Every structure is written in C-alpha cells, then in structure tokens.
C-alpha cells in the first residue's frame, strides 16, 4: 500500500544505483573471500555492467548507465515513456496489500462466533476441525500459540522421532496483517477474493480464538469482536522470532551484515587462498540409508523407453474406478459436510430439480457455490460422468 506521506523523504541527490555501487565497494575491503571481491546483499558475487559486459554476457552499451550514448552524449536521450499513468481507481483496485503498520487495513469488524460459522462453511474441508489441518493443507492451530512457541527450539538433531517445532499462526507468524491480507485475497482456495472485509475480520478473530491469543492483554473468547483498532493491538507471541531485523532504516544493512557471515546460515566460505580438504576429510562410518522412504510417485518412476498406454486402451476404461476417483478427488469436500456425500439420495434431490443434464453441466463447469470445475480433478468427461453416476447412486 502506497503511503508516501508517511515516509520521511531523505534529501539526497544520489540515485539508488549510485548507492548500490558505493556499498558494493565498501564490501570489497571487508571481504576476505577467495575469488571475486564484490558481494551483493545476499552474500553472493555482484557482477556489475562494466566495459559493455556483465560477467560473461555482452550488453548493448547504448542502453546502460556507463555508456556515453546512454548518458545522452550521442543524442539518444533516456526516456522510453511506454505505458500510461495508472488511474486512482486502478490503484485502489489493485493496491490491496496490507502492511504490518496497518497500511491498507480497511475499517470494519467481525466476531469470533461468526468467524466460526464461516470457517465451518468455507474452510473446514481443507483446514480441518478447529484448524487441525489435513489432506496436505496447513493446520492453523495446535493449542495455545504462546505455549506452542516454546516448541520452536525443538530440534530432532539426533532423535528423528522426537517432537518437532510447531509453526502455526499463533506460535510462529510474526505479524497479523499477513493473515488478513492472505485470507481476503487468496482464500477460500477454490474461490478466492470472495470474502468481504467484515467476513475477513470474523475469520481472523476465529484464528485468534483457536490459537488462544491475546489482544491488548485480553484473551480472545467466543464473543470477542475484532475491529481495526483492536487488530492493531493483536499480540503476536513470536514477533521477535526472526533474524535479521529487516525493519526500519537499518533493515537493509542488517540483511547485508547477516549474509556477509557464512556461519549465520550454515555456509562455509574458504579463506583467501585456502585449499579445500582433499584427504581424510571426515569419518564415513555412519551411513544412513533410505530405509523404505517415499516411493509413491505420481506417475510411478520409470526410465523405460516403450510405447505409452493408449487413451483408447480398453483396459484403461475397464479399470477406471469411480469410487477410487471419488476418494481421491471429491471426498475432501463431499465427505466433510461441505456438500452431499456419495449415495446421499436425499441430499442430492434438490440438485436434481433442474434435471440430470443441468447437474452434470454444473459439475463439469463448476459453480459459484464452491464446486470447482470437475471438482478440480483431471478426469476426462467420460470418467467424470462415471463418478457423478456413482455419487448419485446410479
């Protein structure tokens, strides 16, 4: 969210590219590496455009800063003037992000109990009861956020079956603005950008509730009302759990300093002139093998060069199992109370009022009530209709 009025404009004539070049030079003297000296913010090598090249690549010198032509000396003035200015309405329509300081957070309000009802209608199929997760979708809560935060120091170093860290909204996320932004613009997953601001407030309130969190010292209970003012006072237990500190005027330099030290992030940088170990480098007595491991690959692993199974292969049609397809592609919603189950004749009756062809068409094309096209499956029309017939008990 754009908010120039909130920023203190630093009076400087330096353009950002000049800042970049000078900071890279400062790095050069500090760096005790092996080969190239200049480092970028990530700790990697900086390949400036120099003498018409960047690294091994030639560039058109007419385009880039260090050329006389680009500087305007040969009549080619900088200025493409492509595109057009964005209108205020366009900026409002697309500039919807929400920042930790509340920039972009709309006015509005919501309630935990309304959030719960919404959650059960629109979220539970993927995220499970009370945010317990399932089906490969993330869990959203695992008890009291503040207590779960203590698990972040759990490390299964030497005991792979010990309890690992719990990285949930309440125990891990640093700020709450992320949750509002993400729910409103990316959820529900199969039909995003359909929730109102107030509905989003209710869902965030419910997230606070199931994570047992506090707002300005107050525990979020079932009747809690969340509005913009209270939102800004949400206490995130792990607000200080992240490194480097990216906020404020020193944020960028903190990042640079962090990544300049390899040991901060598990890296090894050889000292200038240091040769890597070539002999007797480590004991190799302990060999961990895969031991079962993950083998259910889709499609199954094969390096054979043969003819593919044909689409029209009668064997493929005969072996198509609508029940298995239902379990794989449909059950996540249809067995979770979001939509009628397979074989639920009474439940399906209202959907058949406009006749079977209409139901089939809706199922294939998807609806605005949450049914994705073909349920999000990759079945062909014939296979999909077999599944529909199975669901209707035909």
């Amino acid at each position: 969210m754009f908010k120039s009025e909130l920023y203190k404009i630093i009076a400087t004539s330096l353009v950002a590219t000049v800042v970049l070049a000078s900071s890279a030079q400062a790095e050069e003297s500090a760096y005790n590496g092996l080969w190239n000296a200049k480092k970028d913010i990530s700790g990697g090598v900086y390949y400036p455009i120099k003498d018409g090249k960047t690294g091994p690549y030639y560039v058109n010198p007419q385009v880039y800063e260090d050329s006389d032509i680009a500087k305007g000396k040969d009549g080619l003035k900088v200025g493409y003037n492509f595109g057009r200015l964005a209108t205020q309405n366009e900026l409002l329509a697309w500039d919807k992000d929400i920042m930790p300081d509340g920039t972009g957070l709309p006015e509005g309000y919501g309630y935990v109990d309304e959030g719960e009802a919404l959650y059960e209608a629109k979220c539970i199929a993927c995220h499970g009861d009370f945010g317990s997760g399932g089906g490969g979708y993330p869990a959203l809560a695992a008890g009291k956020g503040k207590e779960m935060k203590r698990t972040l120091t759990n490390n299964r170093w030497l005991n792979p079956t010990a309890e690992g860290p719990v990285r949930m909204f309440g125990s891990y996320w640093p700020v709450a603005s992320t949750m509002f932004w993400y729910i409103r613009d990316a959820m529900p997953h199969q039909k995003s950008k359909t929730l109102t601001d107030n509905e989003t407030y209710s869902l965030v309130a419910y997230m606070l509730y199931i994570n047992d969190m506090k707002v300005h010292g107050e525990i979020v209970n079932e009747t809690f009302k969340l509005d913009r003012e209270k939102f800004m006072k949400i206490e995130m237990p792990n607000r200080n759990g992240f490194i480097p500190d990216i906020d404020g005027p020193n944020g960028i330099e903190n990042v640079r300093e962090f990544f300049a030290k390899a040991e901060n992030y598990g890296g090894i940088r050889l000292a200038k002139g240091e040769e890597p170990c070539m002999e007797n480098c480590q004991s190799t007595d302990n060999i961990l093998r895969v031991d079962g491991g993950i083998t259910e690959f889709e499609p199954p692993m094969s390096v054979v060069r043969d003819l593919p199974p044909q689409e029209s292969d009668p064997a493929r049609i005969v072996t198509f199992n609508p029940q298995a397809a239902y379990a794989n592609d449909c059950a996540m919603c249809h067995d979770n109370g979001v939509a009628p189950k397979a074989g639920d004749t009474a439940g399906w009756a209202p959907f058949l009022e406009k006749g079977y062809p209409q139901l089939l068409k809706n199922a294939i094309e998807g609806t605005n009530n949450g049914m994705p096209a073909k349920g999000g499956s990759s079945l062909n029309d014939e296979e999909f209709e077999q599944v529909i017939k199975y669901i209707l008990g035909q």
Partner: protein
Amino acid sequence: MEKIKKILKRNSDSVVKNDEIAGLDRRGFFRKTGAMSAIAAASVMAPSALRATEDDPNIMHHPDWGQSWGDPVTKNRYGMPSKYEHNNTRRTTKLLASGNYRAAIAVTPIHESEGIITPNGLFFSRSHGGTAHIDPNKWRLMINGLVEKPIVLTLEELKRYPRITRTHFIECPANGGQEWRRPQYNSLQFAKGFMSCAEWTGVYIKTILKDLGLKPNAKWMLAEGSDNSEMGRSVPVEKVLDDAMLVWGQNGEALRPEQGYPVRLLLPGWEGNLCVKWLKRLEFAEEPWYAKEETSKYTALKPTGKAIQHFYANEVNSTVVTPSPEKPWTNLKEGDMVEIEGLAWSGMGTITRVDLSFDGGNNYVKANLKGLILPKCWTRWSYMYKIPKGFKNPDGKQIILTSRAMDDAGFIQPTVDQEIFGKDVSAEYLKAALEDNSKIDKNKGMGVESVYHRNAIESWEVAENGEVNHVQIRTI
C-alpha cells in the same frame, strides 16, 4: 594413511589412458583397418572387445520406419517428444501436494537431463493456487508506490523495452528439504529435482525504473502475482537495480503457463519462490511487506528458535547425475569405462570447481568442469572412471559417490554434519552430544528443522549389483 594412499592410487589408475582403450590387440587391428591413422585407432575399442555371437536382427531386417512413409510435415505443428520418451516427465508425490494438487510441486526428471537447459515441458512446476491461464491481451502490469510515475503496461508495451537474454537456474529453496534428518527419496528426481535451468528473455527492471523515477527512499519492492493465491514477496531494491528481470521468453518461446505466462519475475540465483509468476504488480516502499510466503513459509528455523527471514540466494550445490538411483550401473562390469557426470550450481555466483569422492566424502579427486560456465547457472562436470570389481573401493567397502562444489563467492558445500552442527563439528563433539543432547551448541549450524536452503553434499552408494542408492554420510 595406508588406506588413503590405496584409494588415491586407485583413483589415479581410473583416469583414462588412451593405450588402455586401444586394447592389447592393436597390431591385429591395424592389419584389418589398413590405412587408418593411429589417432583414429586409438579412439576405437579393439575388435576383440566387440565380437558378436550372432547377427543383430535390428540390422539384418528393415525396420517399419524404413519402408513406409513417415508423418507429413503438417502433423504435430508444435513438435512433441518421441512417444517412446513418455516416462521422461515431471512427477509429484502426496507429501509435496495439497489434496487436489493446486498448492503443490511437480519436480524435474534431472536424471534424464542433458546439458544445462531444461526443456520447457519438464521445467519444475510449483504453484500456490494452481497453474493460472492468462489471456495475454488482458494482462496488465502495474508499477506503483515510491516512483514518480506510477504506470500500467500492456504486454506489448513491456516488450518494447530493450531486451536481454540470460541463462539461469531457478531452484525451490525446499530442494532437498525433506532430507534434513535422513534420506527419504531413493531418487535423484525427488532428492534434487526442485530446480531447472533455462535461457530467459526479458528486460532488466532497472531499465524500466530509469523511466519511472524511483524515489531515493524506496528500499523494498513487492512483487505480486495475479493468480488465485496472489503470491507476493518483498525484494530489496538493491537486487532490483542489479540483475532482476521481468521475463516473457523461456528457451526461445513464450513462458509456459506453469512458469507464469505471460510474465514472471526473475531474480537470478535467488529462491524460486521470489521469482513471482503470473506477475501483476510491482510496488516500491520503504519497509518490507511480511507476505505469507516470507513469514509462515520460506523462513528457516534455527536451533536457537529464531528463524532466518528473507533468505535469498540458493547456496552452492552439486549432485552426481549419472549414475543415480534412476540410472544405475547394473549393466556395467569390472573394467568398463564410464563417464561420471553431474551438475553444480550456485545462486551466489559462478561454479569454480567440483571435487568427487568415491568414499562418501573422506577423500576427493578434482572433477572436470565442461561446457559453458555461467553465473547462477547449471554447470556440467565430468570424471572418467573404470569400474572396479564388485563396485568396491580397495578397502572392500562399496563405492559411495559424493560431489562437492565451490563458487567464486568463496563458498564450498558443507558436509551433512557441518550443515547441521556447524563448520567445526568433530566426532568427539558428536559423541558427547549423543550421550547428552544438552552438550549441543545451539548457536552453531542450522539444525534439522529449517526445511529450506539445504545444500550439504549428496551421496550415492553403488551396491555390488550396480544398483545406486541414496545415502547420507554422518560422522558417527
């Protein structure tokens, strides 16, 4: 030390010598081939090694394709691989996918990769809300925030900027991330295939910004996708003004939908997740955004309980590609010459060297880099090797192939234990830690819970029958 000497001697014995290849029966060979030059002869195996017991029917009979019309040029207007190549495909597994494969990853079959370019149809595919299919006529890019001129561009307008072409890999920072505690995949595709490499065409963002007037207090850029998940990430302006690109071309054609058609962000060397696909908006501000994929995910939890946020470059890495679990040595026997080939890559710079170990990382020989050696790009390396009896080292243990790469930023791949416990890990330290876990220094190493940015050396053990299995070498 005796053991080391033996291994080193064996390795030097394995280097190809032309007179070995030419075989013992040179004289007879020359008699048969007459005028053939010695140089040509030296590159051909002795006939005794190739003597057939019976004639090959594939030679003795005309094949179908040699006696009838092939396809007209009007067929397959967009060419497809041979139908016999149908197993060379992206793959996924339930562990890497939400229930309906919309927040999921399908990984590249790098065991089948050739050279340093991944074909567009095999480039790994990761999305957070499914692959979006965008009408390029309706696509718009908005650039707003701390710029003098907030603008909107159509695709046609974007493509009018002066274009550049670069070859870079893109790697998901979770590549290898399921194997911090133990190896889980007996497969190169799944152990290392969360990455691909392509030649990208687009425009430097700095070229566009020159026109828009970036304000001096702009420190961060938000890149936002137009897909269902509105994937967004904060990027330091310093990277934007260095080598960040908006790309629309991939290996000589338009980006594939799975890669963000029509336009994605490319931050060379940095996390694939930062290279936002289906791009719709760039915004500049003084503070970072805390988007979902830079807080709840893509943050690397350390043993101290603190997590690294804004972890950018993918560190130096490498793998042996042939052999691999998918491409074993089961058809080879003692004395056969074989090329051990692999890939090395670094998001921090250019690969400068790769070493290869036959004993899981205790002793190394230098491998040979080959082909183009480009920054932030896959680099091929090679080592010629003669298969020993039973695929065993002189000490009687099975061969364990381990590669170790270095880059021009000065980085070298850590061992598995170094990455977990810190650079100075020793057997004594680990023994003490095994007896009493509280003796582990939590301020050292990445631990095993960080998920992202794992780049420890990777090992393949060759079994007596030539099968190749994924193993992890630990100190004790």
